[in-house]
């Protein structure tokens, strides 16, 4: 069986999560990591990563590396994907695919041209709760889904829970619209739109109402009304405004209703899980998506969430930005 040598580019919040899980994958090992933070690299080295680089290009030059996990800020996606594809490395890319549709198209083009696989990081598709909901839709046990209600509300990038965590510095790119491409709709909304497209097919129409509680030029609240090609209507509520996390999908069908949610576990329970398994129930989807990526490389399969998916999600989001119900 082929062993995939992985490189991780970017060891920020999500990059650290990927590193933790990538070390536990079957048929893969983390060979190299790259980040500008020496501290993050030292930590990675301590955890057993052989090669650490302050420049991601060095990771791409390494002939041992088969594939890279790109966990960089969105504005760096295009350049990094281009460099990785040209170095013939397969790519796992964090969502959103890019800041805008043009960049996303270029990302897809460059990966096709260089014949490398591109998988988008959408962990909800690999979460057992949401997979169970997909099965119910496919089985017909819910009948036709007339209405779907999706809530994804969290603390967002600069509003960490006041009662638990010591505040951590927020990278400045999070405050700049031109670097992130948009607010909560592109950040959390992309997860939901991707999941609902998996459930119901393509979006035929989408409108939005955006909110700006935190006085930035990008939205921190979005309520979207989307219609899908199978005629399901979805209400998508996303927000960065709450100390209380909620990720919940409710499906109202002609035969039955169903609900799935992703909940944080008790910190103590999480700690025990981490000690025993190296992952937690909360991040189970993150580990499963990486394993799927590795399996796709080993068995030469098409990933479940491709670059085209990322592009379609972004197109829907751009349409939602254009079709605002109430312009504030």
């Amino acid at each position: 069986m082929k062993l995939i040598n992985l490189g991780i580019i970017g060891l920020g919040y999500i990059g650290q999560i990927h590193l933790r899980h990538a070390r536990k994958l079957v048929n893969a090992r983390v060979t190299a990591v790259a980040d500008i933070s020496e501290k993050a690299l030292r930590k990675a080295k301590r955890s057993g990563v052989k090669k650490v680089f302050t420049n991601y290009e060095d990771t791409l030059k390494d002939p041992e590396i088969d594939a890279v996990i790109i966990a960089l800020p969105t504005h760096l996606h295009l350049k990094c994907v281009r460099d990785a594809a040209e170095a013939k490395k397969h790519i796992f890319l964090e969502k959103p695919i890019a800041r805008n549709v043009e960049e996303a198209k270029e990302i897809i083009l460059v990966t096709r041209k260089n014949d490398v696989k591109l998988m988008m990081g959408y962990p909800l598709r690999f979460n057992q709760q949401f997979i169970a909901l997909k099965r119910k839709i496919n089985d017909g046990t819910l009948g036709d889904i007339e209405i779907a209600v999706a809530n994804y509300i969290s603390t967002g990038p600069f509003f960490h829970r006041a009662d638990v965590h010591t505040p951590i510095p927020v990278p400045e790119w999070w405050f700049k619209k031109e670097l992130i491409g948009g607010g909560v709709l592109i950040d959390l909304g992309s997860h939901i739109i991707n999941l609902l497209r998996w459930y119901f097919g393509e979006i035929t129409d989408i409108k939005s109402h955006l909110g700006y509680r935190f006085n930035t030029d990008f939205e921190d609240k979005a309520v979207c009304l989307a219609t899908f090609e199978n005629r399901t209507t979805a209400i998508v509520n996303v927000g960065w405004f709450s100390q209380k996390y909620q990720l919940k999908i409710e499906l109202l069908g002609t035969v039955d209703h169903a609900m799935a949610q992703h909940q944080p576990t008790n910190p103590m329970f999480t700690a025990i899980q981490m000690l025993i398994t190296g992952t937690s129930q909360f991040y189970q989807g993150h580990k499963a998506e990486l394993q799927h990526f590795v399996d796709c490389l080993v068995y030469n399969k098409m990933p479940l969430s491709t670059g085209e998916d990322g592009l379609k999600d972004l197109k829907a989001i751009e349409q939602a930005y254009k079709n605002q119900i109430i312009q504030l």
Partner: protein
Amino acid sequence: MSLVGFVKFNNSNIKETVRESLNLIGYSFPGYVQNIVIKPNLCYYWDCTTGQTTDPRFVAKLIELIRDETSSNTDISIVESDASAMLCKYAFRILGYEKLARKYNVKLVNLSGDSYRYTRVTVGKVKFQFMVPETIMNADLKINVPKIKYTMSGIELTCALKNIYGCNPNPKKFKYHRMLTETIVALNKIMKFDLCIVDGNVVSGVKPRKLGLVMASQDNVAIDVAAAEIAGLNPKKIKYIQLAEKENIGIASYIPKGIPINYFKARYPRKDFKRKLMDKAYTFLLLTGLNKKLGL
């Protein structure tokens, strides 16, 4: 003993609530002041509904009151500084202070970017040298507008004295954590605030709660004693309060005026046994470094 005024928050007339708290302690704004500094508590990017940061609407009404009682031309600066995990410019924007500054024509000053003068100060046997921002040095009247909230173990309470910690322009504030008690007192010694008005509408105990309190005093030590009592803490066990009294910053006892303190004490979201146990477990994880290893 110093006077501390307790007033129930009136949402429909915040300005009058503040005025009443000042009347209770017999305070009136000086007839002629040119520069006024207001120091709210901006902690990270936490919304005022969490009880962690001063509500800009409260500060807005205070500004209206100041202008009513002094002059409409009084220069008012709202000050805060960068911290290890917070950039002041974004905190001002996200927490609504930029909007407030535009509406009321007041200055927002990031003390970390202000001109400063080095000042030496000794607390007990510890000698410090701090950069004192010019905006604070040049102010005729300095008003402290803190919150009441629980904080890290060893310090326990954040209110008036601890809020002045944010006047230290050095953004790397964590370097003072090893002698936080002395640092808090030292900063209060070199930057003595004239008036303290606590925005206790929403407070942060074990969770945020609407306490509906406005508390005022000219003594930052006395008001901290009252805040500790409301939060269910023993002020005699809070080292920086005791040290501040020793250093003559204020008096650790007070004469209450207005609504009886028990009304607010009964409503404060205090720590129960389970929470105290959880805190101890979390402190253990922090001290052993296990929290990072476990990704918590």
